[in-house]
């Protein structure tokens, strides 16, 4: 919220801060009203003065430039070169002299322009930051006093504070409210605006018949009729104040309603009285489907729970939010009905949010407006309307306030303050603070009080609220630093977090960089990749056919929750590759989302499945770089991972259907201990070609909830054999189409307990073998826990291996 220092000064003396604005900013920030910016136009316009062009000649060396002699102070003349064309001798202009710094950090210095001395610049409004476009330099009123600072002349000598007012401090959303707060902080008196109560004998009530149907949502409604106003421009003082805090002037009556709102925090609305149908106003709930056009020409169809101001024809205003196009003040308006009301915060906020209409009025009402001042503030506005638009205010006004709002007292012990702030609170000081905050203070006992906060402090309801007030007024810097003692046994960490972290350590050791992607993405883009969710479910990668949609996505690019980890990482790889990162490895651990449909509980629920994706693209480059099909690199990482997890029963084989984005010949389903947990594979060559990615890209995606169930497994010691192991090498010849994995699985099984390890060390296909055959060389390392293996035992095992190879894949010894 913007606050003008001059305006503030109407109510509390802040003149001491004109020279030291930072001091006021610090005071407010320390009190919880964070000052985000200070605009000091006077400072911006330093060394910018009103000048008088005494002579306008031609620049001797340039046709398009003029050479002016400008009086910049009585009797003092400077020579200035000017590029504009719209000025003439005798004009009053704005001169930026040497030392001025114009917006955009444009410093004015004495300079030579085409060899002719120029001691300043004649300014346009654009150059002064006062307009986005302007033609030529600014020509001022001929009566403008030469030498006067432009800031003073233009009324730019105000200082404007930009405040961040937290939602609990509705009372500070006006100049008067902030003045009241400053009065409390500095212990200074606060002036109230003067309100004249002179009204004609004519009755408001005889002009307009008004009823409030829903006093729950409209606790108070005040209205007064004003006749004979003349709508026109606002006077300069009014315009200047509104403009200083960034509000456009509309007309004198509307400006007054805005002015009083910014001044007192009470939103007001002026109706053109002649446009109120039937001269009847009813404050009632909307009917569902009822229609309305706002004064900003927005069409609204009501849902039914909005509170409306209506006439005999329908809505004339959405209560507390915005007036209607049908009843607003225009230049033809002569009589007005001025509304000052109090509407329930939640109702106004709901109306405003439901229809997406945000106004200063709704902003204030939804945070809370003091119901006790409605009448006074209405008459403050009436005074100003009469002052700027003429007319006559009628007596016998409306003030419907059936249940005056009261505030419940709050009981508090000074000891509580001490306990919660960690330092000794003082009862006298507490009383002083509470009085300063306009609270009613009743001392119940020694150190025990009943405090009744003022109606404008919606945030003071409990003792802890008063503890905060004490801390705030005393200053948070008085809070000391201690560490709490802790009696309990520390709890366990979330297993998901710890396992993710260990997994991350492992994968980093394997050379993968960790990625973070948004949990939401573009539905269409993901759907291009995820064409058949059943394929993924069969692979253990839980997925719904439909992604979970966001009701209010930021954009269509981020409109659904992800179902798979693959697409965001694919995007990362694509961007990396096209940014020149020719190879890399990424992993991400994250959630994918499914809807839980439960016939027993109709309530909707959502499930998050933890998944891991590892990916690699490109080849290693450099001396001794070992390149082999990329997908095998991923597979070796997976096998190390399984080893880490003490998982030995797994298969990686192309069983079932591959996700559509994978290379048909380079993919496999991953099955761990009888459960499908994911897939591994290279990206489909057509996708690579479409994206102009000239290196292989591989993914493996795994359902971590499945893979990590029961992890970590307990480590159990097995005795280390005292006997030498024995290696036996085998070369088998088998059909090329058969899988080596089927061979090795059976070979392992056949060796049984005597197997220490088994390694495939060669696979050969070529001239030395018949077409369609391949040779697979295995080294089997045999051992025994309790004896040295004898030749006879080794022979027996060898026989078993050969038999198993024959039986499983029809392989024969070469």
């Amino acid at each position: 919220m913007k606050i003008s220092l001059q305006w503030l000064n109407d109510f509390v003396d802040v003149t001491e801060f004109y020279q030291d604005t930072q001091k006021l900013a610090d005071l407010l920030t320390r009190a919880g009203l964070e000052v985000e910016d200070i605009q000091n136009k006077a400072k911006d316009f330093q060394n910018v003065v009103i000048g008088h062009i005494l002579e306008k000649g031609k620049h001797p060396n340039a046709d398009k430039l003029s050479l002016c002699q400008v009086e910049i102070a009585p009797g003092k003349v400077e020579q200035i070169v000017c590029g504009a064309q719209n000025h003439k001798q005798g004009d009053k202009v704005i001169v930026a002299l040497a030392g001025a710094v114009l917006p955009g950090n444009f410093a004015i210095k004495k300079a030579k322009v085409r060899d002719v001395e120029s001691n300043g610049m004649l300014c346009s409004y654009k150059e002064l930051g006062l307009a986005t476009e302007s033609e030529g330099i600014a020509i001022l009123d001929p009566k403008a006093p030469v030498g006067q600072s432009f800031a003073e002349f233009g009324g730019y000598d105000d200082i404007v504070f930009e405040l961040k007012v937290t939602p609990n401090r509705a009372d500070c959303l006006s100049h008067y409210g902030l003045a009241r707060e400053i009065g409390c902080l500095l212990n200074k008196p606060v002036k109230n605006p003067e309100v004249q109560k002179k009204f004609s004998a004519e009755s408001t009530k005889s002009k307009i018949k008004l009823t409030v149907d829903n006093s729950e949502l409209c606790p108070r409604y005040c209205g007064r009729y004003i006749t004979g106003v003349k709508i026109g421009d606002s006077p300069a003082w009014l315009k200047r104040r509104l403009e200083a805090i960034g509000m456009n002037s509309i007309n004198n009556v509307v400006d007054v309603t805005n002015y009083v709102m910014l001044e007192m925090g009470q939103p007001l609305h002026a109706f053109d009285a002649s446009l109120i149908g039937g001269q009847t106003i009813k404050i009632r709930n909307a009917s569902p489907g009822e229609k309305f056009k706002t004064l900003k020409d927005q069409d609204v169809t009501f849902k039914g729970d909005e509170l409306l101001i209506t006439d005999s024809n329908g809505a004339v205003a959405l209560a507390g939010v915005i007036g209607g196009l049908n009843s607003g003040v225009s230049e033809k308006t002569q009589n007005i009905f001025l509304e000052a009301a109090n509407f329930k915060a939640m109702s106004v906020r709901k109306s405003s949010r439901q229809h997406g209409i945000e106004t200063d009025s709704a902003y204030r009402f939804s945070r809370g407006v003091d119901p006790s001042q409605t009448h006074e503030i209405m008459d403050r506005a009436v005074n100003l309307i009469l002052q700027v638009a003429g007319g006559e205010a009628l007596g016998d006004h409306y003030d419907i306030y059936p249940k005056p709002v009261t505030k419940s007292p709050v009981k508090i012990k000074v000891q509580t303050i001490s306990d919660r702030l960690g330092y000794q609170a003082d009862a006298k000081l507490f009383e002083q603070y509470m009085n300063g905050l306009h609270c009613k203070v009743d001392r119940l006992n020694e150190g025990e009080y009943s405090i009744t906060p003022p109606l404008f402090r919606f945030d003071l309801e409990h003792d802890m609220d008063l503890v905060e007030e004490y801390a705030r007024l005393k200053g948070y810097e008085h809070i000391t630093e201690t560490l709490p003692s802790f009696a309990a046994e520390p709890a366990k960490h979330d297993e998901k977090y710890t396992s993710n972290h260990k997994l991350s350590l492992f994968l980093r050791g394997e050379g993968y960089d960790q990625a973070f992607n948004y949990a939401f993405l573009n539905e269409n883009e993901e759907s291009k990749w995820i064409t058949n969710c059943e394929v993924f479910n069969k692979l253990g990668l839980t997925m719904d056919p439909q992604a979970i949609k966001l009701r209010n996505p930021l954009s269509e690019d981020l409109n659904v929750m992800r179902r798979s980890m693959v697409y965001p990482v694919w995007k990362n790889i694509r961007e990396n590759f096209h940014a020149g990162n020719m190879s890399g490895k990424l992993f991400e651990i994250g959630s994918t989302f499914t809807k839980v449909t439960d016939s027993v509980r109709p309530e909707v629920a959502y499930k998050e499945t933890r998944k891991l994706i590892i990916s690699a693209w490109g080849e290693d480059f450099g001396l001794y770089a070992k390149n082999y099909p990329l997908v095998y690199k991923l597979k070796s990482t997976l096998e190390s991972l399984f080893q880490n997890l003490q998982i030995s029963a797994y298969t990686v084989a192309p069983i079932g259907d591959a996700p559509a984005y994978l290379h048909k010949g380079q993919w496999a389903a991953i099955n761990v201990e009888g459960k499908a947990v994911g897939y591994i594979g290279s990206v489909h060559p057509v996708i690579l070609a479409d994206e102009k990615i000239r290196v292989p890209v591989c993914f493996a995606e795994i359902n971590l909830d499945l893979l990590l169930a029961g992890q970590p497994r307990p480590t159990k010691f097995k005795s280390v054999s005292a006997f030498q192991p024995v290696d036996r090498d085998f070369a088998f010849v088998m059909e090329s189409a058969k899988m080596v994995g089927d061979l090795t699985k059976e070979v392992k099984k056949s060796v049984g307990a005597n197997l220490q390890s088994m390694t495939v060390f060669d696979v050969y296909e070529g001239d030395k073998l018949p077409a369609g055959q391949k040779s697979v060389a295995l080294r089997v390392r045999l051992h025994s826990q309790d004896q040295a293996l004898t030749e006879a035992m080794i022979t027996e095992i060898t026989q078993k291996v050969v038999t198993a190879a024959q039986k499983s894949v029809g392989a024969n010894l070469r």
Partner: protein
Amino acid sequence: MVNQHLIDIKQNALKDFHSSKNSKELYQFKVQYLGKTGALTEAMKLMATLPKEEKPLFGKQVNEVKAELETAYAGVEATLQKAEIESQMLNEKLDLTLSVTTHEMGHEHPIYKVTHEIFSIMARLGYSLRTGALIEKDYYNFEALNIPPDHPARDMQDTFFVDETHVLRTHTSPIQIHSLENEKPPLRIIGTGPVFRCDSDISHLPNFHQIEGMCIDKKISMADLKGTISFFVREFFGPGLKTRFRPSFFPFTEPSAEVDCSCPICKSKGCSLCKQTGWIEIGGCGLINPKVFEHAKVPYPEWQGFAFGFGVERMAIIKYGVDDIRHFPKNDVRFLKQFSAGV
């Protein structure tokens, strides 16, 4: 008198040993003279032809020659082998100024690196970590945290809605409520993970991360809160840093404070990061609002507590000087590779 034949054998052998060019050749000579069919063994056979009285002397002389030759052999062998190893090493010389392909370690994403660092610091104070669901019930995200429907405090957090009763959590604070409901105080909890706000610009990501702490005990004060955060700030950013509290408003805490720490970049001298103020805003905190205890059915004031929260991206920006928040979700490996694990 020594048998002339033995003298010849000895002299020839010594000559041959010393003339050997390498240990292999030397070994050939050893076989030639000292082997099973070598000259000396053959000479031994002459013994049979000698008169009985000469036999002992001859035998002794043969043994003396044998011993002498074996000693000579060992000496020459040692010299030759030493030279051979030297030359072998010269042949096997590798240029270690040459760098070959490296196996590069992967890197932790800075967001998780910062999260883990904060977690590790707080774990030393007895805090244990919780994560929680990303699609959260409206009740846990708002009402239980004293943010009723149609309350203006909801405006502070632009919310993504999934359906009537579910939102993408806008903060990690729902973790507090689940913990209060399911665990028994006293409690020290760190909650972390992704959070979502309908906001995206140069300084905001719609999906970012928070880390927050909650401490529940019999007697908890603002001083305990400030002490805890100060400890954290010194551990995380470095010793000597100061912590400042400013009054603020969060519906779930009362009193509430914004936390500033003295700028770790310029050491409070004023820089662009701290906008010349010497202070940097790092998060929010406060004593847990009694209404939150009420919602979670934890008896108050029997149990009291504090809570604090930080934006992880902001912490990473401050700690590493990252100039644009949009680097975090891009995953450019040139960015990621800057965050080494160290030891």
